[in-house]
């Protein structure tokens, strides 16, 4: 195998958790709020359905092909040439997504904290750090994710300091226009949930794969809970205004003042968020690199880490000219683009694989049945 390292299912869960939530947490309240108004806290629950489906597809496929990633088993399921083409499609999707994520991260940093730093520096430094992590292997990424997970949870402790600014009235009227607005609000977050499909690249390295399903489902549940929690907080603080801010979570943390001394805690949140973004980009980057070397049949993935890193940096500029276009992509294209590649395609693959297995079993059954029948036949004749 290309990768010697091993991770535990708990590590994988934390990696996926950070990969999904790191970018979702900044923008989701705003996007959901746009459509769901004051029902935005219901949206993550609907959105998580995509997550559960994706995890189910990834794990069911892994059960059929335990040592293979999606790039490898696609050729087994739909034949060599279509499978390779599909693998290429998936790889293009992931390298494109990694570029977009890196760009989104850099835009956020430039917009909020380092307005005078050139954006290329922010992107290149992050990709260099991620390249180091990818080179270090899946084990290091797993351990780092495990460690950073706790730090990532830290801002939740700060949230109670917002209680002063919260107005429960903003919750009501609940479900004023039925369920539809909250469902509409779920459309964008469910795109992020589909990213859980990345686990298909990591499942072959998981030691306790029996717990994979449990860990994957718990991860999705955890993400849904955390997003619900954050949406609720944002709603209680801003009301329907939440949709007017680009990054409402940051604005909310700016409200916090502890003892009139600890103020402007958004910087603290930013530092923690960088940790999450690092894990997210590393995981996407790792999946791209691993998938590419599997697709090309390389013996080692390390030589292509740097070239792909350069491609990712380039793609972060090629795909989008500016922040507005990035937001537009997030709202209009990604809710369909992401789940199409990461949920619907895997589900189709799974269906085909199951059909194929069934067909094989039937033909095998016929093969084994045939001599038996012949045998009984002869017995009868003798009798």
């Amino acid at each position: 195998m290309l990768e010697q390292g091993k991770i535990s299912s708990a590590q994988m869960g934390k990696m996926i958790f950070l990969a999904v939530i790191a970018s979702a947490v900044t923008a989701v309240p705003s996007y959901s709020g746009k459509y769901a108004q004051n029902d935005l806290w219901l949206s993550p629950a609907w959105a998580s359905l995509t997550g559960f489906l994706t995890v189910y597809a990834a794990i069911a496929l892994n059960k059929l092909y335990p040592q293979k990633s999606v790039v490898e088993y696609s050729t087994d399921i739909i034949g060599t040439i279509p499978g390779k083409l599909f693998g290429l499609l998936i790889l293009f999707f992931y390298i494109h997504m990694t570029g977009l994520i890196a760009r989104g991260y850099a835009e956020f940093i430039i917009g909020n904290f380092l307005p005078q730093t050139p954006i290329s520096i922010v992107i290149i430094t992050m990709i260099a750090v991620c390249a180091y992590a990818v080179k270090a292997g899946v084990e290091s990424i797993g351990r780092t994710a495990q460690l950073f997970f706790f730090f990532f949870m830290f801002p939740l402790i700060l949230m109670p300091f917002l209680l002063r600014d919260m107005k429960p009235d903003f919750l009501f009227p609940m479900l004023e226009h039925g369920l539809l607005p909250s469902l509409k609000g779920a459309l964008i977050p469910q795109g992020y949930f589909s990213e859980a499909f990345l686990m298909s690249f990591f499942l072959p390295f998981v030691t306790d794969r029996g717990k994979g399903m449990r860990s994957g489902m718990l991860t999705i549940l955890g993400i849904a809970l955390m997003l619900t929690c954050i949406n609720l907080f944002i709603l209680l603080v801003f009301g329907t205004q939440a949709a007017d801010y680009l990054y409402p979570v940051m604005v909310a943390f700016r409200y916090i003042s502890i003892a009139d001394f600890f103020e402007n805690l958004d910087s603290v949140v930013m530092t923690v968020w960088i940790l999450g973004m690092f894990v997210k980009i590393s995981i996407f980057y790792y999946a791209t690199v691993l998938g590419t070397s599997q697709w090309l049949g390389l013996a080692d993935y390390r030589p292509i880490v740097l070239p792909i890193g350069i491609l990712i940096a380039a793609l972060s500029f090629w795909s989008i000219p500016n922040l507005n276009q990035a937001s537009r992509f997030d709202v209009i294209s990604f809710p369909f683009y992401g789940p199409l590649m990461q949920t619907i395609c895997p589900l189709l693959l799974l269906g085909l694989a199951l059909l194929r297995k069934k067909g094989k079993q039937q033909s095998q059954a016929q093969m084994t049945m045939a001599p038996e029948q012949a045998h009984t036949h002869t017995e009868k004749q003798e009798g």
Partner: protein
Amino acid sequence: MGSLSENARKWWRSHKQKTQQQTAPSHTPLQKQLADNEQRLRDLYANCSDVVFRSFRIGGTIRALAIYIDGLTNQEELERSVLSVLMQTKLPKDSPLTKLLDNLVPVTKSREMSTVEQCLEAIANGNPVLLIDQQERAIAFGLARWEKRQIEEPVAEGVVRGPREGFTESLHVNTALLRRQIKTPALKMEQMQIGGYTQTQVVLAYIEGIVDEDLVAEVRARLGRIEIDGVLESGYIEELIEDHPASPFPQILTTERPDVTCGNLLEGRIAILVDGTPFVLIAPTTLFSLLQSSEDYYQRSLASTTIRWLRYLFTAISFLLPSLYVALITFHHEMVPTSLLISMAASREAVPFPALVEALLMEITFEALREAGVRLPKQVGAAVSIVGALVIGQAAVQAGLVSAPMVIVVAITGIASFMIPHYIAGIAIRLLRFPMMFLAGSLGLLGIMLGIIVTVIHLSTIRSLGVPYLTPVGPIKVAEWKDTLVRAPWWMMNTRPHLTGDYQKIRQGANQKPGPKKGGDPA
């Protein structure tokens, strides 16, 4: 690269052969004639003024020769219980040596030898060798004694509560210190010699039954691989057997304390004792064991836990404080509360340097002062501290070179780095502080976070003899948090930490929590 190391290997081979020819060709048996043996040894020890050859006759008839090194041998004892006894005895010509050993010489440690090499080794270790005419065997007497330092309190690892003994330069004193604490025969001490010229004695100590056998085999193999001309300190061995030579973090713990060594042996680790140094190597180790002091286990658990957390906090401070200060001053003014920002700005008004230069200047000066303080003779040390207080202090602020907050930052960082109980671990963090300052000066908090991420990736990549360096937080081992995140009371420490492979998990009986209701009944 390849050809270079190949050349080095060739050079080493020829060199080794040469040195062997100089000392002795391998395995020369002793001759029957005393004169032949004497000539051979005199040739080998030509121009060695410290080697003493003493010829005498046993019982006035048989010619014999005693050889020893002046200053390494207990001369009075040699005279009293070997020379005078043998000179006055009557011995039949062909009586076996064992009789001589059994009946005549009152020395407990004595050994028969048949080759010149064995004789050389015995002489070099301070054991006088007796050669007798018409005998093809020689006897070495265990009469080595040389001047050694007394057992003193370790300088680098002080404690308030706990044993005050420290290891010394003498290997056998050190092994005895271990044996005095761990009396079971399961405590094994494998001895080997490393170093072509120095032939330094190295002891590999472990407790059989607790330690993982594969771990011992691995360490033994790594020690066996070493080809070096001399070992003067355990640092040589450490650098030759560690897993990641390029890492700034030490992957092997060094200690001067027998209690620390015993504690680690009881947790299934191995210790390497090297003759000539009080510093013992302990492996495998983790980042957290470098942040623990032996006193943690002697104080009350609540106090130890608090002190541990204080130590973790100050380790982070010594790593990050200067760069955080630089980042806040350069990029993130809004994070500093307004009143504090105003006073900081006021004190920085006269300072000509940017914050990064100021911080580098002060940190480098501080490091220089510390190094000077360690190296200088004690009489000059006082001068250094006086001058140091001027350089990093009020005078520098009044001169308008640095701001007062910067002085405070440097001072706190200095104190913080002294809080790390193992000096070598402190060095790694001191080193990494400088790149962090550059990152902070160029990218602010983002730079600091990137620096932290790179450090964490590095730490999660390295292993010490197969044990991940960040155990038990990455990978998580909840059972071991009782001795890292807190220091649980002894009645809760029922299991040993898991290092590699098989291990003896249970360390002590369960349910030992004391209390007034606890009667004599063990259930």
